[in-house]
């Protein structure tokens, strides 16, 4: 599934990746997919937990060269 939107949160520290992701997600439709790029290690568990808490679906999570990529489907 292709991402409908991409959020570049690289270089941002906690809590900003989650704050930004939430804001973007609010403007999206249910079923749409948001891709988030982040570099803050501390935000990894938080993005996953936020996604679960918000009723979204974490489709994919990976790390490549210090960049974490999340694909989250709006629930």
């Amino acid at each position, binding site marked *: 599934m292709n991402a409908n939107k991409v959020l570049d949160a690289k270089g941002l*520290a*906690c*809590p*900003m990746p*989650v*704050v930004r992701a*939430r804001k973007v997600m609010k403007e999206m439709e249910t079923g749409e997919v948001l891709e988030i790029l982040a570099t803050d*290690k*501390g935000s990894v*568990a*938080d993005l996953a*937990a*936020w996604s679960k*808490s*918000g009723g979204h679906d974490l489709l994919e999570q990976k790390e490549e060269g210090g960049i974490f990529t999340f694909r989250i489907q709006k629930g």
Partner: protein
Amino acid sequence: MIVQPMTVSTITKKVVNKEPFFILDVRNEDAFADWKIEGENIQYLNIPYFDLLDGVEEILGRLPVDQDIVVVCAKEGSSIMVAEMIAEEGRAVHYLQGGMKAWSEHLEPVKIGDLRNGGELYQFVRIGKGCLSYMIISDGEAVILDATRMTDVFLDFADKLNVKITHSIDTHLHADHISGGRKIAEATGGTYWLPPKDAGEVTFAYEALEEGRDIRVGNTKIEIQPLYSPGHTIGSTSFIVDDTYLLSGDILFIESIGRPDLAGLAEDWVGDLRESLYKRYKELSEELIVLPAHFMIVDELNVDGSVSEKLGTLFAENRGLNIEDETEFREMVTGNLPPQPNAYQQIRETNMGKVTPDEESQREMEIGPNRCAVR
């Protein structure tokens, strides 16, 4: 209302003095369940910051009005945000400066006592993680045992007391935290000691820590006598200092004993652990004051914030020293082990010199409690 930072040093004092206060921990629930600031009179509320982004009105009623409130997160960013939201509602509130990262790294030096021929013994309490390091000083020299990776704290302390660090010792190859022992020896030109049986895979030179090789500090004959006491690891070594103190490493704690499985050999080492605790330690004077390399729960802190107890008292009260039946002992130390410390294999490899993670990675690897004991 203005948001005020609260330092880890202030929190440490509150914990030691058993003061009541309130923690609003805004990390996610797994992180909170795994590891938090512990204290006898702390009340907690755990709500992840991402569940508070719409406002904090709903939780205001759950925050006390007669106690300090400290908002806590991993590195402080989220706690400042939440604390500001609470302050906007007119409530006085603090955040933990530096977050759990700072809590994990804070060391509080406590003087344990004077030595007989002049000299002093200090314990460095890593309150957030439960690690204990030691500095023995005499005649302008210092020996450090089980130093953590926050080496500046030890170097600055030695500078302040105007002593030169001549030896740096690890009682065993640590699995719960990254040792600062080698780095301190390199910085001071001192000697780094490690038990050879734990050092089979290390990539650097070290001095072999073995029974019979006494280490002196200063000229006043403060003797540091190694005592081979395997069981937590195969090389684990204890020390008798000045005929008064027993530095027990990770073999014996105040309310628990060392676990034998962190190098992967619980079944093999349980016999060694029993031999060390029930035979070798039994032959020592009950008057010795035990100084372990860890504590697990804040109950183990004395009123001055130190961690110590007479060996005789531990033989009377520590359950791990009072299991007559060998099979039952074996069952206790191998059958019901707590989860292993976070990233313990990577930590062991770092302490062997096989890998050299950057500081941020080292910090992440050390997240959480030490988990070196079985009760």
